[in-house]
């Protein structure tokens, strides 16, 4: 059957125009992201792995034990996660995937930071304006129903193969919970507290920073946790456009039908996921 509307062609033309007219911008974005990712990778890899394991372990321990870190109570709370972190990271290292694990972590960190940089302000905006909410809501719904692969297409159009399209696709994929939960947290702040703020002469800025954001903190942190996990879940897909790390090994494993490789790198991702999840959850609980 002949096409009645050649929608794909129009989109293609549109994207071409965007790509050409804003090529400076895409180049700049590419530079910044690639540079940041590489810089972080180099830095982390320059540190002896044992130091990093020690730091992450202590971080995980402290996140759970808090101020009671050196008391019996704190030890009880923090020791199991700390143990898991040590063993898990040592396993990754022993399997020979330390470098890839660092690359994956860097990718997740960079993507998460960018997602939060956009997501939290968008969430605040959606919470404060019903119009904004009406616009943002359906877009988020659409973003979450779309298969993750779809985000690779525009990313690869604007940026050549490498870490950048991987980061960009990951950012888009993991952005929605940051927006949603920020907005939810702010909207759930009790009306009477806001009203008290107004009655005592708070400006809008004071209402936001002294009342809404602190009271929404737990919800926003839950959102950050979800962003991180979604970002991590994208690493295999991101590797299809050239992002490096454990995801790329999994992808190789699939392509080469190499069960050992696929299993080991997959296990590595799971370990990272559990560590990141537990640490952020512990932080959110405070």
């Amino acid at each position, binding site marked *: 059957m002949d096409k009645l509307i050649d929608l794909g062609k129009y989109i293609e033309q549109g994207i071409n125009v965007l790509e050409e007219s804003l090529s400076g911008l895409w180049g700049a974005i590419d530079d910044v992201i690639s540079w940041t990712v590489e810089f972080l990778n180099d830095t982390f890899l320059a540190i002896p792995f044992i130091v990093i394991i020690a730091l992450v372990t202590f971080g995980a321990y402290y996140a759970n034990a808090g101020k009671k870190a050196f008391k019996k109570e704190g030890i009880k709370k923090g020791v199991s996660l700390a143990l898991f972190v040590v063993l898990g990271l040592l396993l990754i290292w022993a399997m020979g995937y330390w470098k890839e694990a660092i690359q994956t972590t860097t990718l997740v960190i960079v993507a998460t930071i960018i997602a939060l940089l956009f997501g939290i302000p968008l969430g605040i905006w959606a919470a404060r304006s019903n119009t904004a909410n009406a616009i943002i809501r359906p877009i988020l719904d659409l973003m979450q129903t779309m298969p993750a692969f779809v985000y690779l297409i525009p990313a690869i159009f604007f940026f050549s193969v490498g870490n950048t399209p991987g980061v960009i696709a990951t950012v888009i994929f993991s952005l929605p919970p940051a927006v949603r939960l920020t907005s939810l947290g702010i909207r759930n702040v009790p009306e009477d507290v806001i009203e*008290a703020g107004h009655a005592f002469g708070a400006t809008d800025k004071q209402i936001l920073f002294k009342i809404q954001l602190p009271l929404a903190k737990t919800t926003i942190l839950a959102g950050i946790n979800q962003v991180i996990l979604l970002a991590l879940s994208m690493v295999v897909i991101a590797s299809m456009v050239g992002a490096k790390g454990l995801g790329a090994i999994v992808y190789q494993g699939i392509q080469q039908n190499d069960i050992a490789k696929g299993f080991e790198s997959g296990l590595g991702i799971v370990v990272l996921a559990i560590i990141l999840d537990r640490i952020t959850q512990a932080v959110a609980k405070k």
Partner: protein
Amino acid sequence: MSDNRKTKIKVEDLTLIFGKRKQEALKMLEQGVSKEEILKKTKCTVGVNRASFEIKEGEVFVIMGLSGSGKSTLIRCLNRLNEPTAGKVIFDDHDITRETNKELLETRRTEMSMVFQKFGLLPHRTILENAGFGLELRGEEKAARDERAKTALETVGLKGYEAQYPAELSGGMQQRVGLARALANDPEVLLMDEAFSALDPLIKSDMQDELLEIQDKLHKTIVFITHDLDEAIKIGDRIAIMKDGVVEQIGTAEDILTNPASEYVEAFVEKVDRKTIITAETLMFKKHTALEVHKDGPKGAVRKMRSIAVDQLPVVDEHKKFLGHVWLQDVLELEKEQGKSLEKVINTNVPSVYKHYTVEEMLPLITGIRHPLAVIEEETGKFLGLVTQTSLIIEATRFEKKEVIKLKEQANEL
């Protein structure tokens, strides 16, 4: 109360309309169209309808009215949490309704503070930080605001709680923090919207006393909303009664009680209705001491009576079933005769009531007797508590305490 005091707040023809077609609704209101009609035609609610009154400096001005009569809307117009649709609010000598946003912030920060029914405290901040929140908002240094917040907390009797969090305090104490927060700003006017309504009766009464004490020292101008007439009479210098957004009457409690301006006001201040509403359950003293016929002998009975200073007590059996009352003199006599069981001296010929009995139904029962009424469970006859004669008479009449005592004396002489 001398009336040559300065006027602090003057409200002139203040109208507030909720909804989109305000101007249209306002015009209809001026033409005398009713609130219902306006709602039907424009979907606008008239919150406050051309209210005019003056509040004197140092006065406690109470606003009363049924739910939905516009009390909150009116008080919120005073600091423009609700934007008035028409009319003026003149504070000292400037019109608050014409203030720019900046001036309005300044007014809220320095001249008027509000206390809320739901407290409105910040859960993530300590009591001290909450009390100093108003000062923080207006940019005062930490040391200075902590100092003032501390003093304010002391004023409301919360010394020593500075480092705790709101959730660790009872409702009454949380509201003290709310009051301290308002006082710390040292405003000239306090706006209190049902500030004590969420509190238990006893704590409420404490808070009222406290407020009066504070008022004695600080002489603020207080606008106080309540729907509790007793509270209004206790703390108010003058009372305004609202109905459907209109201020129906303003006057002292005496004025309003003796000269109600309309049937609405009359119904509002009449307690006649209460007689048919208040039940034994509300009035009774729960878990009142009772004698247990299978355990308590005459000696135990005397002891129990003396410990709570009464000369008569209800008696129950081992299943807590109410049997009757015994009197001290009978018990003493029994003791003299070396009797062991109270059974002989129980007066079973006494009235008892069920929980749902109203004051009106109970009143006839107390004529000719001088002991409290036992409240019992309908199915089992289980003893639940006592309703005293005094509480019945207070509920039933609008007499002063003195007259109640006289009435009781008369009853006793019977």
